[in-house]
């Protein structure tokens, strides 16, 4: 799943015929000033300014300002750009026209096993969140399109009346079309409002999650995916992501500040069991990491260097199940090189390394790890006869 910010998300909805307010995304007050001279709607109407970042509760943080004129919006941009919230620095602001309305509604499409589900409610904003039972659903099986009568039935069921039934059903149909054609996994518009000027339903906000795996068939996805983490990726994380994107197999790395148990396990499945084992014993994870699919040794080496550079770590868990086709000797070669580099750089002082692994060329790989003892590493090496997560028990036994 890949989160898309409001601007590009609204862009996709507009592409599929959904009314969205006029908006621009700017990176400086000067840019907005110039845009104001070129666009009447910026000069004439009332405006909303929102920090265009993957941040929750922007309103509370003062990163949403409403009812502005152009000068007010320019001032808001000036104020917001550069604001530091956690690890995120605000670098973009989205300015949209205020749409005067009285009623707010809710519409979403989400991915489910059978296909997708269309959700509608005749209330919106915070009201729908506290009245979730008012949301009505229509299941659309994969490969199918929702019939208009069915949509109207759900909309009616949700409490819409009169001419609004057809309008809301149309809106939901368009949102579904957008979802279906853009390989979305979740689209949510909250609120949907009726524009007083022309009576059209307009999407005032967009939560957009796309299937990053489908990027190959969407040449117009020219926007960046936002971090799904509620924080920006760190430099080290981005470096590993860059490697991950160009190799066979994969390497993954996420930093968790404050932990003391560093993770360097193999496999998307086993890595989580290792993390679970650390947490179950009261340990504190310093990171999440994983390599799999027989990645090249240099990629594993780069990952190892990042893991060794984590501050304040006491143990490194080089765990792994019995590999199917990942070459243990080769990938361990990368880890060993990474360890050597880290040690040469003065890292790994007082850090104990725990190894458990099986798979193709396991004997050779484990032997090479054991030999590190002679180079002065504090390392314990176990083979397949030691159960998967027992090295975590051993590592944290002193706690």
């Amino acid at each position, binding site marked *: *799943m890949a989160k898309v910010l409001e601007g590009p998300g609204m862009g996709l909805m507009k592409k599929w015929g959904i009314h969205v307010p006029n908006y621009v995304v700017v990176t400086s007050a000067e840019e907005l000033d110039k845009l104001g001279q070129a666009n009447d709607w910026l000069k004439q109407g009332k405006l909303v300014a929102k920090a265009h970042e993957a941040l929750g509760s922007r309103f509370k943080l003062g990163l949403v300002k409403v009812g502005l004129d152009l000068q007010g919006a320019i001032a808001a941009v000036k104020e917001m750009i550069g604001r530091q919230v956690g690890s995120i620095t605000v670098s973009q602001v989205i300015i949209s026209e205020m749409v005067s309305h009285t009623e707010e509604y809710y519409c979403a499409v*989400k*991915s489910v*096993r*059978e*296909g997708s589900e269309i959700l509608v409610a005749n209330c919106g904003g915070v009201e729908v969140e506290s009245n979730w039972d008012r949301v009505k659903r229509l299941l659309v*099986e*994969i*490969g199918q399109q929702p019939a208009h009568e069915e949509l109207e039935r759900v909309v009616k069921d949700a409490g819409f009346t009169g001419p609004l039934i057809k309008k809301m059903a149309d809106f939901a149909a368009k949102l579904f079309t957008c979802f*279906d054609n853009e*390989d979305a*996994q*979740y689209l949510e518009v909250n609120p949907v409002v009726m524009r007083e000027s022309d009576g059209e339903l307009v999407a005032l906000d967009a939560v957009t999650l796309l*299937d990053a*795996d*489908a990027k*190959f*068939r969407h040449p117009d996805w020219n926007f960046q995916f936002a971090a*799904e*983490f*509620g*924080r920006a990726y760190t430099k080290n994380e981005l470096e590993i992501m860059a490697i991950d994107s160009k190799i066979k197999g994969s390497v*993954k790395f*996420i930093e*968790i500040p404050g932990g003391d148990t560093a993770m360097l396990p*193999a*496999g*998307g*499945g*086993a*890595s*989580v*069991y290792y*993390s*679970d*084992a650390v*947490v*179950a014993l009261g340990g504190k*994870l310093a990171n*999440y990491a*994983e390599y*799999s*699919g027989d990645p090249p040794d240099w990629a594993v080496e780069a990952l190892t260097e990042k893991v060794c550079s984590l501050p304040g770590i006491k143990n490194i868990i080089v765990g*792994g*199940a*019995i*590999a*199917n*086709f*990942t070459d243990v000797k080769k990938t361990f070669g990368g880890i060993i090189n990474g360890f050597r580099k880290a040690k040469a750089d003065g890292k790994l002082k007082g850090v104990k390394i725990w190894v458990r692994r*099986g*798979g*193709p*060329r*396991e004997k050779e790989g484990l032997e090479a790890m054991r030999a590190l003892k002679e180079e002065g590493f504090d390392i314990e090496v176990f083979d*397949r006869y030691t*159960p*998967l*997560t027992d090295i975590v*028990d051993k590592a944290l036994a002193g706690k």
Partner: protein
Amino acid sequence: MSILANKETRVVIQGGPAGVNAARRMAEFCYLIKQPLNVEAFVYPPEAGKTNEIPYGSGLITVPVYATVAEATKHHPAINTSLVYIGADRAMKAGMEALDDPHIKLVSMITEGVPEKDAKLLGAHARKLGKIFNGPSSIGIISAGACRLGVIGGAYDNLVLSKLYREGSFGVITKSGGLSNEIIWICSQFADGITTAIGIGGDTYPGTDYVTYLEMFEQDPQTKAVVIVGEMGGDLEERAAEWYGAQKRRIKLIGIVSGFCQESLPKGMKFGHAGAKEGMKGEGSARSKSEALKRAGAIVPPTFGALGPAIKEVYQELLKSGQVKEIVEPTSLPKLPKTVEEAMKADEVIVTPLIRTTISDDRGDEPYYDGYPASELINKGYDIPHVIGLLWDKRLISKQEAEIIRRIIMLSADHGPCVSGAYATILAACAGIGMAQAVAAGLIMIGPRFGGAVTDAGRWFKYAVDNKMSVDEFLAYMKKNVGPVPGIGHRVKSLRNPDKRVKELVAYVKSLNIKTPCLDFALQVEQVTAAKKENLILNVDGTMAAILVDLGFPVDSLNGFFILARTIGLIGHWVDQKRQDSRLIRLFDYLVNYAVPKRREVPPLR
């Protein structure tokens, strides 16, 4: 018995190199269980019509490659299963093609990163047809003692260690490919091993879920218990729990779910497989899944470490109740033949080398010339002539010697377009021939009449000096036994019109105050021969030869200096013609003396 994959399973693999690799692994398993290879065909349009060679034991099996699944099943009607190793952008088309083939009942997709929508469409299509679509991102399916689909099970040693050569009593279903092997291993250590293990893939919406396979295991009398390894995210584990709890089931269910660490991670931080994402409203957490399984009556060990003992307990109960019997292991199993490299490493074979080298080795991270790393030579200021010394004469020559060689090469690099070598290269270049071939055409001209006299000149001057011959003795010997003296004589140059290259070389070498017995002797020979006939001077070949012999280079290497030097010129001529985009050339009739008979009648053939 087993489910999904058995001894009757016949496979088409859709894909290229990754598919061929899987076929190799499958052949290893077939060899272990003494069954014929279960892969009958490949489908891979870029290589249609070719064959792939799959090692089986110490032999090779030829497996044909087709352009379409329909062609493959037409020629191999026993095929009933497809494994898809096609890239994510074409995986759906490949999967649909297989599902639509009436012969095929099971499609397992290994491809990772398949769009969710495509996976759902494939799953729905299979259900409509009453077939099984397994995956995407599936490591494969293995039935102990019967059938392996994909690389699941790992290396040969692991197949043996995990007792996959014969049936056990436990079914395994995992999302994670890496953990499938671990669970198979645990089942073989803590119990009697597996019946069938299935990787369903770590995506959010796999084509087939736990329930479908649990139903199958329930119908398979050999399977007594099933281990499922789940992950947070989605609702597959809850559905499995619901199925298990719905009525009394014959099989025991042991379940474990990962993702408890999520509870103590910073909010919003998630990791693991694509499917390992908690639902929008908190459903799908490891805890809720574990609770659901427990409520349904499944055995849920608290940690992964407790899984082995839990499996052991179930096995002991099965033994006690007589549902399973202790298995007597076979005394011997086929050993996978080693490759020559592996056998050599294990000191099991002696191989007589085919060739022997004494000059260079690049098996390390860079080439070593006669033992010296190339980078070190560069960094310590050595030059191309030193590399020539190392590779041609296995010695590190001095700075002075290197300078002489450098001058020889510079003076011999080219001699204009008219000489045989350059002319041949130009002729070839004009005919549109590539560089390597055109330069080779020029090099072919090097021989007794053009540039190829260096070795012979060196050989005879050295012969004379080694045997302390006088000039007269030498000339008499040559006249009697060899013929004209190589290195003496020039087509146009003479004593009065000397070859400037020779003068330059001789003057430089003489200025160094080094011993040059061959050069001295060659100059003495010239005195005598040039007195007899003006153009019988020491030519550049003879000069180079005498000097290089004096430097100690082996006689057989001497022509190499001319060949090397002139290659520079020949490349230049080829590039020059290319740059000018020269046209094809041919001789004009007026440049040919047609000394041929007049036209005459052809007599009747007899």
